[in-house]
């Protein structure tokens, strides 16, 4: 991928200062998103996907705090910008965000058309009649039947899928270069999910935008994304293309996730043993080691480095570090067959 890097997150740490103690939500996350791609971020609930997204918009809410790290967007460090600057130049103009529950994300007392027009007036300096015309056009673009009628209706009169389309229209209205979609299809049923995802895909290629799709649903990722990042307990454990992640997972956690997808072949439902760690007292070293079948003494002591296992495919696991050192040691079953040499 010789494309340009649109968003680069370097060693991002976010803590939440709660009554129970400091929740170490992000533990040095690294991420690169290239222009024009559809990047999926997967992981369990509470692993830091949404925190990463809000950190990009500098919207980490109290009691959360970005401790360290850098977020480069178009080669500008967003964390060095002041609040006004990021609000005026980035949010809404360069980066927008689609929320999980579309009906809750629309203002209940403003009709749908006004909400989109409002975004246009505020961000694009349009006058009212221009904004209204554009709104109808946008609604038509997201496949809403009778856009004039829907524009006059209020969010509670819409179904979930419709509301999500209105939301998409609103967030694309300002022609952002990066669209963050935070579990956009979680609240929708499966057939509507597929519709919304394919719509999103179409629109993105049409508007030449980049998408950061946050989800816990691997099938959604498999369907739509070009590259995937897997997060676990505040760490980015594996990054690769969809094909690499789905067909050739390297990190034990990703392997567990893939195995846990119900299939026709296996009658048993495979799970990853244990449960998500408490991030007030995260496990030492690799945060996954208490649940890992391949854990070694070193996993308890040190945080694994990110290693390249093949082209475009990185993972943070000591299994590969060792393999990298000693070359093709097949002691750990199920791994890649000697692929680690390209780093």
């Amino acid at each position, binding site marked *: 991928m010789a494309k340009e890097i649109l968003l680069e997150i370097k060693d991002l740490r976010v803590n939440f200062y709660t009554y129970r103690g400091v929740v170490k939500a992000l533990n040095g996350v690294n991420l690169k998103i290239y222009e024009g791609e559809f990047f999926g971020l997967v992981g369990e609930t509470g692993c830091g996907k949404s925190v990463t997204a809000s950190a990009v*918009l500098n919207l980490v809410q109290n009691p959360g705090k970005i401790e360290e790290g850098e977020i480069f967007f178009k080669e500008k460090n967003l964390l060095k910008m002041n609040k006004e600057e990021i*609000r005026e130049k980035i949010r*809404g103009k360069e980066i927008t965000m689609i929320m999980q529950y579309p009906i809750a994300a629309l*203002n*209940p007392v403003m009709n749908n058309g006004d909400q989109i027009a*409002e975004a246009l007036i*505020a961000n694009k300096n349009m006058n009212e009649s221009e904004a209204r015309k554009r709104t109808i056009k946008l609604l038509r673009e997201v496949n809403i039947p009778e856009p004039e009628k829907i524009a006059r209706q209020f969010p509670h009169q819409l179904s979930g899928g419709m509301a999500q389309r209105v939301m998409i229209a609103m*967030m694309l209205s300002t022609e952002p270069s990066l669209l963050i979609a935070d579990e956009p299809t979680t609240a929708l049923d499966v057939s509507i999910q597929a519709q919304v995802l394919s719509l999103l895909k179409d629109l993105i290629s049409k508007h030449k935008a980049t998408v950061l799709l946050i989800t816990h649903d691997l099938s959604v990722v498999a369907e739509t994304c070009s590259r995937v990042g897997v997060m676990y307990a505040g760490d980015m454990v594996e990054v690769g293309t969809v094909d690499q992640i789905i067909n050739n997972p390297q990190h034990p956690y990703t392997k567990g996730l893939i195995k846990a997808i119900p299939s026709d072949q296996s009658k048993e439902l495979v799970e990853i043993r244990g449960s998500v760690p408490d991030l007030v007292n995260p496990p030492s070293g690799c945060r996954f080691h208490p649940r890992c079948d391949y854990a070694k003494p070193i996993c308890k002591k040190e945080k694994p480095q990110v290693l390249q296992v093949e082209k475009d495919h990185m993972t943070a696991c000591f299994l590969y570090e060792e393999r990298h050192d000693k070359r093709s040691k097949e002691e750990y079953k199920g791994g890649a067959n000697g692929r680690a040499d390209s780093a």
Partner: protein
Amino acid sequence: MVSNLAKENFQNWIASWGKRHSSEISDFKETVYLIRKSPLTMVGLAVILILTIMAIFAPYIAPYDPVTMHLDNRLASPSRAHLLGTDELGRDILSRIIYGAGVALKIVLIVLAIDLPLGILLGLAAGYFGGWIDEIIMRTADIFMAFPRLILAMAIGTALGPSLRNTMIAIALTMWPVYARLARGETLSIKERTFIEAERALGTSNFRILVFNILPICISTLIVRATLDMGNIIRIAAGMSFLGLGAQPPTPDWGLMVSTGRNFLVNQWWVPTFPGFAILLAVFGFNLLGDGIRDISDPHLRRGRQ
């Protein structure tokens, strides 16, 4: 030709008005239906309407001038010429009550015109920004709320000097904390909702979020509270006038009329009684209407809009 076309366009525009605003119209119809279904609200509405008509058309309705004295006709009992009798200076009590409606409504409207915007402004700021802004505004509000409202209004009224204008200022100063608290509470809950987060993600400024997203939602609560408070305002204003802190003679103020008339309660009962009834009716009417509006604006009572 051109003008014909314009005329036709205009006619179409008029004709399609109903269609374009169908949801608003059906909503309005439902509101009317709900009011008509509730007899107490109707009574309240009727009282307030009569009061308003009295206030606006007082010079045309009132049979006599409210301030001209007729010392030859002092303390006349109710008769055909003076339906509610005359007071100690020979002034027609009915006329004074009719003019008094205007004074009472003026107090209510001016106090609310000061307090609603003030309360909204301070409450929104406190709730939205939090921190030290919140502390300063709400602790000030707490100080005002620590005193009984009538006592505080009296103290401020005394300090400013007795007059109708100062009464309004005094009442306004004692009432704003209620609205500020209400607006703050609403703001606190609304600002945590997802659509505010969505607005932030769109880069909307704090000002726009406050004015276009939070204000429209909390305004209905505040309006209900304001209608419920209208009776209170009349009551406090009458109380202050009764104590000599409010309207000064010869203003036809109900509280003042009760105050000067109380010396005649035993032998000429009509002098203080009728203005007292006027206060009672007005407060009662405002309370009934306020309750009615609260019930009607309750979304659980309304059917879904289609």
